[in-house]
């Protein structure tokens, strides 16, 4: 039976889809059969970030409403045998997702997969509530800035009270914090919140800190999950996060400013 992991944040633009794609690909690379579902109906992006946008035939809404079998809508990743994508519809809106329909699809996928990663839309409206309702675990993505942290706090409250687990009085949704766009130099200068500051406010366990890295934008544009960029620091940080998600104890990396000698500082200044 698969574990359902929802990637959520409240705020938009913090890196939910990038993180869902990377965690999904990372889990698949670790040998887990994984499907990533795009819940952002109407603003479909996951297929782009995962590089399968030209192979979309059916989508999540077709499966719920139009008698399309879920296997027909799943897109198999070209790089990883274990990885599948269920894209969102671009032409519908979030009302097309009803709870019974979503529950039915998830139940079916649960039989075949080890992990179901749900990429939540931003906001706290219907689409986001639907994406977190069935979650077993939640990854709350936040940037080290005050507004993002506040929105994450709000979404944690919603997870605690509006998920299926909460409604049924079962063990609460297990929550993880993923800090993205973390720039150690700017943290050092006081422009960004420190990891400890964010943890003090949100008080949920830290899954990982993804450093600011140019590769994230480049990888997204060419449709490669960052986690597959082995040589990049963001890619390695996502790999670490996946290991922690699988229960391994891995030390945090890339949260200190990179050590620079006078020569490289000189180079950077002239760059």
């Amino acid at each position, binding site marked *: 039976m698969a574990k359902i992991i929802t990637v959520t944040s409240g705020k938009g633009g913090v890196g939910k889809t990038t993180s869902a794609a990377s965690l999904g690909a990372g889990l698949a690379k670790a040998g887990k059969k994984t499907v990533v579902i795009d819940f952002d109906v109407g603003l479909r992006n996951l297929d782009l970030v995962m590089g399968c946008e030209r192979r979309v035939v059916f989508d999540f809404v077709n499966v719920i409403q139009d008698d399309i079998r879920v296997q027909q809508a799943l897109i198999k990743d070209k790089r990883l045998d274990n990885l599948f994508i269920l894209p969102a519809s671009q032409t519908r809106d979030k009302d097309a997702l009803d709870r019974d329909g979503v529950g039915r699809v998830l139940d079916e996928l649960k039989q075949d997969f080890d992990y179901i990663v749900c990429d939540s839309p931003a906001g706290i409206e219907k689409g986001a509530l639907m994406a977190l309702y069935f979650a077993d675990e939640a990854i709350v993505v936040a940037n080290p800035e005050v507004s993002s942290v*506040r929105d994450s706090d*709000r979404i944690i*409250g*919603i997870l605690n*009270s509006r998920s299926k687990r909460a409604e049924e009085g079962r063990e609460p949704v297990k929550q993880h914090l993923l800090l993205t766009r973390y720039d150690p130099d700017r943290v050092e200068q006081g422009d960004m919140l420190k990891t400890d500051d964010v943890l003090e*406010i949100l*008080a949920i366990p830290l899954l990982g800190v993804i450093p600011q890295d140019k590769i994230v934008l480049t990888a997204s544009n060419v449709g490669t999950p960052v986690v597959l960029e082995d040589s990049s620091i963001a890619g390695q940080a996502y790999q670490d996060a996946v290991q922690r998600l699988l229960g391994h104890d891995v030390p945090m990396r890339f949260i200190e400013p990179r050590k620079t000698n006078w020569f490289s500082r000189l180079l950077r200044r002239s760059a």
Partner: protein
Amino acid sequence: MSERSRPYQIRGTLQTLLSLRVEDPEAPTFFDQLKADVLRSPGFFKNAPVVIDVEPILDRAPTELRLFVAKVRASGLQPIALSGGDKIWNDAAAAVGLSLVAGGTHVPIGTGGEAPPAPAKPEPAPAAAASPPAPSSPAPTAEGPTPTSSGRTLVSDQAVRGGQQLYAAASDLICLAPVSSGAEVIASGHVHIYAPLRGRAFAGFEGDESAMIFCDKLEAELVSIAGFHLVNDELPTAALGKRVRIRVGTGRLDIDIIA
């Protein structure tokens, strides 16, 4: 005889009492309406002790008090005391076996539902600022932690997150985890927060000026007691981040740092 061997203990308690404020005892439908109200929420009203407040009818003579008390009892309430009376009324009360209580803080309550109705709207506290801040009205859908009620005090051991509201309608409130910014905690009595307070806290929500707010780390957006309030900008710098007690002083809120 030592203290220990006494077969009883005398303890001070604080109880919320219903008060029947009598405005027109001669109204022909007085007792029909009263009975109907009791029947509508029997769990709340049936045999509930009640204080008869005669302040609005002081200009009348208490000639029918005995009959009146009997009829109130027949309606399903238990008159136990009189309030708001003058000497004549108080003597009459003693003659019919009612004790006397001083007028308390009155809160109008609805009589619609079965449960003790939550105070619909807080009465604006007498000396409050022109428009005292009010928490957003408790929404039935507002997601919040599920607190446990131990006796009269509401205890919550989960963090109160932004957008959530915790409401202790007729008691003190104890929070054992942080109150996030954007969250609201409200109590008719004291508010205790054994964690950082970053959101908004309302104590003495129904006008009780003796209510206080305690927190381990003051980072509040707003604190309010009985209508007196301070926003974060008005909090003294020395108190920020400290463990404090907040109470109503003379016409304003006083903040004491607790070492």
